[in-house]
């Protein structure tokens, strides 16, 4: 392990939230996409974010690792405000290299997989550990092979991403996110680009991660995954969190009209 995360993680305790968001606002031009979001994600918690298209789910997820720069409010990941540095009690925009380091323990899985196309599966998996975390190459390779076995893809390490099916690519992408020994995993609609018969294998892998105790924030339209794997379901609409709680409550007995209307569509 590199020392990057230790300073922050030393201060955190088991019940201290991994993600803590307060009053997060974000606009694209005149369009207000996030209108004040408060969210806590505890260690080992699986949070599934549901909501209609355009409600700001992806934007929220991308604000967490600073791929999107928010306008107001704050988010900490393991106590660190990604994208910002505090000096002398004042907050500054962090330099590129600092932001890069702050992101190193947050894994992300994208809708379009975004595997590095010029690298083999194995190279994709060891790129960050070897290049950024200073893990010795043979150890990274050993760990990568173990992760590939875990997502059911042993023997494919020398394939290029384009030689794999969508479902296989997404499982490689998940393994790539695990390879950095993440403190937090972010998923943005990981199954939306997949053919229906391939969705199951990816959701299966994600269920295993949830059971293994990873801290996950998952944006998805798979209600069944939310019901089975989520500790907390967050329902967003029009840039606000309308309702959140255990899946039994939010999915089984929604209180808000908008939640009911949204869930109606999946019956």
């Amino acid at each position, binding site marked *: 392990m590199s020392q990057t995360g230790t300073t922050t993680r030393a201060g955190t305790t088991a019940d201290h939230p991994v993600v803590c968001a307060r009053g997060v606002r974000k606009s694209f031009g005149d369009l207000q996409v996030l209108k004040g979001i408060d969210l806590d994600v505890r260690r080992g918690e699986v949070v599934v974010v549901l909501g209609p298209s355009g409600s700001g789910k992806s934007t929220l997820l991308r604000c967490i*690792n600073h*791929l999107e720069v928010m306008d107001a409010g704050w988010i900490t990941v393991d106590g660190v405000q990604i994208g910002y540095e505090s000096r002398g009690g004042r907050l500054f925009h962090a330099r*590129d*290299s600092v932001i*890069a*380091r*702050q*992101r*190193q323990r*947050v*894994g*992300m899985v*994208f809708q*379009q997989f*975004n*595997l*590095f*196309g*010029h*690298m*083999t599966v194995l190279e994709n998996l060891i*790129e*960050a550990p070897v*290049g*950024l975390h200073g893990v010795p190459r043979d150890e990274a390779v050993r760990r990568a092979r173990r992760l590939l076995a875990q997502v059911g893809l042993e023997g494919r390490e*020398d*394939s*290029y*991403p*384009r*030689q794999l099916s969508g479902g296989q690519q997404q499982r490689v992408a998940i393994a*790539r996110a695990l390879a*950095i020994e993440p403190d937090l995993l972010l998923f943005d609609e990981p199954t939306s680009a997949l053919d229906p018969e391939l969705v199951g294998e990816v959701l299966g892998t994600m269920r295993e991660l949830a059971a293994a105790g990873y801290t996950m924030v998952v944006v998805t339209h798979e209600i069944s995954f939310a019901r089975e794997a989520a500790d907390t379901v967050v329902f967003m609409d029009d840039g606000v969190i309308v309702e959140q709680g255990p899946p039994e409550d939010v999915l089984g007995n929604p209180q808000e009209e908008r939640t009911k209307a949204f869930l109606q569509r999946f019956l």
Partner: protein
Amino acid sequence: MDADGRDVAGARHTFRWGQWAARVVVLVVAAMIVHFLVTNPNFEWGTVWAWFRAPSIGRALWTTLWLAAVSMVLGTLLGVFLAVARMSANRLLNGLAGVYIWFFRGTPLLVQLIFWFNLAALLPQIGIGVPFGGPKLVSWSTNDLITPLTAAILGLALNEAAYMAEVIRGGLLSVDPGQREAARAFGMSSGRALRRVVLPQAMRAIIPPTGNQLISMVKATSQVSVIAMADLLYTVQSVYNRTFETIPLLIVAVLWYLIVTSVLNVVQAFIEDHYARGERGTTGLPAMVRRRLRGRRGAGRAGAPVTTIEQGDRA
């Protein structure tokens, strides 16, 4: 096999009269050209062959080659910086790169070469010190710095950088933005993401126009003859000005230029093949050579699955 005649294995090609007529015409024209080349005494093939091997021409060719190589390398390096600057969110960098590209693409190379060669007329001394007429720490006479050689390299490289910047920018734009995003999300700095993820994938789009640029560069070096650089064309010209063997000597130059560009074409094909890894199926010369080699090496293991050929891209 198939009573209805639907089996495509039995399908024939229709005889195409037009295609055959075209072939005959091309054959006849080719024969006419060869006849013209061989029977016309004014080509003086004996003279051509003598000069083709002449040491003075060899030295001139060498000058052309390394001038093109050095200018291309410098131009490409500067071009990478310009391309990245042109794409950065930093307004100042972006603007500066834009002005550079606008100026150097907008003026003729010949003018730029002559300008650099005559820099001393505008700026007799080049030095480091306080600007606007303040004291100087060190200074040099421009005439000492600007020789035909440095003027040629300056002119060619700075001009090339403007074109390469656009070639590289086009390549970078061709890579899916998701690649950069994934690299950034995993904690790579912008520079590292560019080096490790974006540029390698942009190479596929960058190589073919770069091949064009390099070939243009080899020929563009002939323009340095205006500033008395003894490149291939300049040398050939000074020979025929003495001997009046104009046509044969120009043919010598043409032959050498063609040989050099042919070699470059082959090299380009192999580089393209290298950067095609991760893509399905490659074609052309390198694939042919590779299949040959593999065929020879793999003679003992006949019947190897066909898929190894596609997956063995990096073998």
